């Protein structure tokens, strides 16, 4: 006698503890094994692109805060870079340096959150790793508060630079954070990197082939985890990335462990960049113009930037009015989900959650 079994469809999300907000996956199971996976998105759609068409360029900056809400600085930067290209503004050096310092600190924050939640989804440590990640993140958010009065929705960058110079007490505070962060990162690494359980759970799981990754337009740490050294900060340096020295860490196998490893390494590289910027930065104006209202000439602009999640760019079309005619967001989180099914099928439920965490996507950016 044979027992008849049938696949079970389980809807994980949109209300689920580990789907990064309101992501939903429709997984078909054969026992614990996944035989089919389908992402369902759109639960956080706020119409950002349409809203941007009805707002002046400066006002759109506040919308970009809310795209990838754990990485607002880089979203701000990506948007104003496109605007500056559209308008044809030259940004003063100090403004660019401040933007890079802020963006790299934001990258650390974003990666810490990514790593923290990845480890949380790996089974928690009872939340220990996440708490350690948040401890470090708080230090940086304190810096952001000093810099621009907000911790998450920063709206720091302005078209033509940043809104204001850093206050005097920012620099010693930054120094303290830069001194403490490597030790913190070491601690996080000691907790997880050599842990046999972490390795058993993540090595060799959900491997993404580099060719497949490139063909699916994956970017950011997900692509670099697969061994493709592609970073817009190197490929087409914006702001002052051509004046600083840093490495692009790449993984070997393209598994969950490598994606996670790449993020931790990028935290160290970001620290390097900030250290160099602090040395190189010189007094001067931080903003090319105090204007808040712009009428760019008709045309279009797109500047690819390397956000913590991948290639983030704003494709702006101007018709000569005060608001963009079209504002398309090339959201890395969304495009990194394209290999969702290939990553998950054949693995177990526990792996699916971890693989999802290794993609480190953000629903604010996926649904926009």
């Amino acid at each position, binding site marked *: 006698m044979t027992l008849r079994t049938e696949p079970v469809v389980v809807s994980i999300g949109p209300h689920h*503890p580990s789907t990064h907000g309101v992501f939903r996956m429709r997984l078909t199971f*054969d026992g*614990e094994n996944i035989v089919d996976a389908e992402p369902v998105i759109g639960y956080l759609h706020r119409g950002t692109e349409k809203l941007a068409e009805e707002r002046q360029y400066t006002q759109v900056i506040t919308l970009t805060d809310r795209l990838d809400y754990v990485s607002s600085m880089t979203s701000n930067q990506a948007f104003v870079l496109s605007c500056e290209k559209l308008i044809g503004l030259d940004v003063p050096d100090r403004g660019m340096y401040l933007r890079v310092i802020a963006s790299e600190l934001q990258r650390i924050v974003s990666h810490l959150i990514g790593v923290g939640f990845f480890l949380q989804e790996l*089974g*928690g*440590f009872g939340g220990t790793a996440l708490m350690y990640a948040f401890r470090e993140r708080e230090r940086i958010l304190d810096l952001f508060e000093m810099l621009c009065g907000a911790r998450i929705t920063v709206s720091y960058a302005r078209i033509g630079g940043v809104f204001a110079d850093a206050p005097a007490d920012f620099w010693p505070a930054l120094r303290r954070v830069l001194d403490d962060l490597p030790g913190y990162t070491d601690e996080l690494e000691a907790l997880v990197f050599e842990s046999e359980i972490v390795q*058993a*759970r993540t090595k060799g799981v959900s491997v993404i082939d580099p060719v497949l990754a490139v063909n699916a337009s994956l970017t950011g740490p997900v692509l670099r985890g697969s061994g493709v050294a592609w970073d817009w900060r190197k490929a087409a340096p914006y702001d002052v990335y051509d004046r600083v020295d840093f490495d692009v860490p790449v993984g070997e196998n393209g598994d969950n462990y490598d994606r996670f490893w790449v993020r931790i390494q990028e935290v160290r590289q970001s620290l390097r960049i900030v250290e160099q910027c602090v040395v190189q930065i010189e007094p001067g104006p931080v903003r090319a113009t105090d204007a808040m209202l712009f009428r760019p000439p008709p045309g279009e602009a797109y500047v690819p930037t390397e956000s913590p999640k991948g290639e983030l760019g704003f494709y702006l079309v101007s018709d000569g009015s005060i608001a963009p005619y079209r504002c398309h967001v090339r959201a890395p989180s969304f495009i990194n989900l394209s290999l969702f099914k290939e990553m998950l099928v054949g693995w177990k*439920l526990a792996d699916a*959650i971890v693989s999802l965490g290794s993609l480190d996507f953000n629903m604010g950016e996926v649904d926009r």
Partner: protein
Amino acid sequence: MGGPTGGLEGNAFYRVVYGVVVEDLGWEPWLAYLIAAMVIILIVVNGALALGTLYTWFERRVLGRFQGRLGPNRTGPFGLLQPIADAIKLMFKEDIVPRGADRLVFSLAPVVMLVPTLLVLAVIPFGKGSFLADLNIGVLYIVAVGGITTIAVLMAGYASANKFATFGSMRAVAMVVSYEIPLVMALLGVTLLAASMSVVAIVEAQHLPYLLVAPLGAFVFLTAISAELNRNPFDVLEAESELVAGYLTEYSGMKYGVFMLAEFTNTIVAGAIFAVLFLQGWQGPGLSWLGSQVGFLSFLDTGAVRQIESHAWFLAKVGLFAFVATWVRATLPRLRIDQILALAWKVLFPLSMLNVLVLAVEVIVWPEPSAGELGIMAAINWAVAGAAIFAAARLVSLSTPARGLGPVAAVEAR
């Protein structure tokens, strides 16, 4: 056993009650037994539940400190009233039973979960001469009764009519059944050493803690018991990042509360089992030992001091276990279900077999080991344990097996 007194003969409290009821008042002996047993049960059950409740607070506080925060600290001094606040909140929550649920089984599951936890306490000696029943098959009883909780988990998962709950309960059955075997084998080593299955006798036979004498057995026992307790790194039944709350997903209100109480009490009970089987139970040096050694302190060497001391030692050992359990929870991520089963069958089972084998040979060589001979055995066993764990790490791989189903099979399966 024999007679109406069951296993209570050695109990100090029973002897006092017997003295009053039978010898002074001249009543029937069974009445003394009834009164003594009832009072002890009352104390033990409520004490265990109170400890389990306290442990919810303890774990949250300690886990908080491991994570660089304080934990509950608002209700009462150091947040000590937090469990009471939680209980009040749970009592006032709506008791929801899902529409598709099997109502009877759904409501029965929390009870089935809690009862065996308390039943195990019957054979645990809490102090010198302080126990409910000195069963001559105590260890067997612990294993038999402790296994019932699996059924409760299965009941809860099945009755909830929820896919997450079903996942959780299926994992529970696979895991707990697998880990019963290494657990029993680890206990077998202890009974071999003590040449008795009576828990009291095992405690008294431990001139040296069996943790030191049989480290491999202790390691296997600790690993297996954390699987039995559904604690990290084996907490796949609840696995909040995967299964929301596993078999508890549909539970709310006091039913959920009873489940949680049972789980936390379980940890305390497991600590008690570990304390008596591997940590010398109530034994330990204290004031009375000081009194027996130092002349002018001899007034400390009395029965009452010994009693209090033995209970304190027992509680301290349970507390140590609770702390270590929380420490493990703060440090280890979760294993995947196939890796958990692989660990049970590929690593723990051979290790526990080896443990029993080595101990059996040693018991033949030293049939009634003294403290010194136990020391020699400990040295041998530590070497064996180190070599075995080294070999296991080299030979056995828990890492991922090949993909189960490819994309093509997936399409066909649909």
